[in-house]
Structures are given as C-alpha cells and as structure tokens.
C-alpha cells in the first residue's frame, strides 16, 4: 500500500505551508484517514481494502495538499486579498510603519542611552566622536526599520500561505520607498521624509535591504524543505 501521509506532508512543505500548519494538518488528515479506514472495516472490508478505500476517498495526496493550501489561503484575509494585501497595502503602509518603527527605536535609544535626559544627549551631540557613533546608530535604526517593514510583509505572506512572488512584490515596493525616503542627521537636527531630489537619491543601501530580507526568507524556506527531505530520507 503506497504511503499517503508522507507525500502529503512533503507537498505541503514544498508549497511553503508554515510548519506549524503542516504538523496540525497532517495530524488531522491522518486522524481523518484512520476514521475512513475504521468505517470501511466496520462495513466488513479487509484491512488492505479499507486502507485502499480511505486513500481513494482522500484522493491524490499531492492534489489534497494543493487543495489544503488553497483552503488555507482562503481562510485568511491576507490570503483572500493577496493583491491588495501585498501589492497595494505596502504602498500605503510602508511610510507609516517605517516612520513609526524609526520613532520607536529613537525613543528606545533615548531612554536607554540618555535616560530621557536632553542635556546628556546635547553633550553627546556636541562631541564629534560620540556624534559619529550616534549618527551610525541612527543609520542602523533606519535600516532596521526598513528591514522590519519588509519582514512584516514577508511574514504575513508566509503565514497566509500565498506564493513567494507576493513576498517579492511587497519587498520590491518597500525597496522603491527605500530609494526615495530619507533620514538626515545634523549636529542638532534630525529630519526624515520623501524626496525625488537628485542630491539624496538613489540610496542603494536602503533600497537593497528589502531585497536582502526577501532573499533571506527564500533561503530559509529552501532550507526548511531540504531539512525535511533529509529527515524523510534518513
């Protein structure tokens, strides 16, 4: 009798189903298959016939995995409206989320580094060495905010079981924003905004961050599939 559960599990993993969902779906489908088999045994079929009937009722495990993924996609707002969620929403949400995250990081830095004491901050800013460190930290916060927004959309795409291309699209939108949004630090000023001014754009490092995030998500997915295959082979 060909195994039903392993091909189902393998296909779910290959389709990028989140591992938590894979475990739960496989466990429940295995229970379901056992119920179908028990019902067939109760009708007087032999063990082999009962298993065959259970497998026939469930259909091709590869197709069932695809159906399960489609159902999973339909079961979330993000999955049902993936064009809006990953094609349009990042356009509206990126500037807000990026500014919000950056402000939160700034507040955290101020609280941890200067205990909310503006005088301490002023002393640090007036010192060229600490100003340089501060400037680097602010650049890092800016990059972290960009990465966080891209990661947020990547994670939502993964959780809603949509195709990887939607992660790429959302990250590409974040990347375009990365090119045209800017953060500027002076001795006593900090400004952030959006510009198409030639002196400030393009900012390739900022634009590259969302692509790096998409690449990292892709590598993690491939690694999960490879590990799973190794486990099955082992």
């Amino acid at each position, binding site marked *: 009798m060909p195994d039903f559960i392993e091909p189902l599990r393998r296909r779910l993993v290959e389709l990028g189903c989140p591992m938590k969902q894979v475990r739960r779906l496989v466990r429940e489908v295995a*229970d379901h298959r*056992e119920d179908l088999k028990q019902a067939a045994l109760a009708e007087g079929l032999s063990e082999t016939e009962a298993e065959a009937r259970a497998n026939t*009722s469930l*259909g091709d495990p590869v197709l069932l995995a695809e159906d399960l993924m489609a159902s999973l996609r339909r079961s979330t707002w993000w999955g049902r409206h993936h064009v809006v969620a990953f094609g349009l929403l990042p356009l509206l949400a990126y500037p807000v989320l990026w500014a919000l995250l950056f402000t939160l990081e700034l507040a955290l830095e101020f609280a941890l580094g200067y205990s909310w004491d503006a005088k301490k901050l002023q002393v640090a800013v007036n010192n060229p060495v600490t100003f340089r460190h501060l400037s680097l930290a602010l650049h890092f916060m800016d990059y972290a905010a960009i990465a966080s927004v891209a990661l947020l959309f990547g994670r939502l795409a993964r959780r809603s079981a949509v195709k990887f291309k939607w992660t790429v699209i959302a990250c590409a939108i974040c990347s375009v924003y990365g090119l045209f949004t800017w953060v500027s630090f002076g001795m006593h000023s900090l400004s952030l905004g959006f510009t198409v001014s030639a002196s400030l754009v393009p900012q390739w490092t900022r634009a590259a961050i969302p692509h790096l995030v998409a690449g990292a998500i892709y590598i993690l997915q491939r690694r999960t599939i490879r590990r799973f295959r190794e486990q099955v082979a082992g």
Partner: protein
Amino acid sequence: MKKTNPSFLNGVPELLVLRLLARQEMYGYQIVEEIRTRTGEALAFGEGCIYPYLHYLEAEKQVSSRRQEVEGRNRNYYKLTARGRKRLDELTSEWNRVTTGVALLMEEQHA
C-alpha cells in the same frame, strides 16, 4: 437602503459547521459525515478540506479545539464559542432572509 447579500453563498459552509457544532462538540470526520448525511448528500466537504476551514473559525475565535482521547483514539474536537454562537445567529437570520426572498420569487413564477 436594503442590505445586500453578496456573501450569502460564501457563508453556507460556515453556517453548516457552526450549526452542527451548536448541538455538540465534534471532530473533523464527524462534521464531514454529518453534513453529507443530514443534507441527503446534496452538500459535501472535500475529505480533508474541512481542516483549514476549522482552523480559520478557530482563529476567528468562533470555535475552540482540544485534543481528546475517546475510545483509544486521539482526535481534535471542536466546539462553538460565545462569538461563534453570535455569528451563527447572524448567519441564520441572513439565510432566512435570503431563502424567504427566493421563495417569494419562485412562488411568483409558479403563480
């Protein structure tokens, strides 16, 4: 303005599952079988495809689940929550509104 009903067919599986769970706690296979038999095989969920749907209802806090052993078998049992009951009431009144409307139209055609 009259309320429209763009999702009345989309809401049918939800209505069926919530209606069954309002009576008793059930597991996936049992729900699929009950729908098949109690609708005279007019409606049926694809085997296995009920689970993402149940997970969705759980995420929406309309049902809750627990792993339980009954007669030597471990299964996930689902039951209706207070939010699910409220949703069931909404779907039931929506369904009644739609079926009444359709019945009126059909009667007009037969008259």
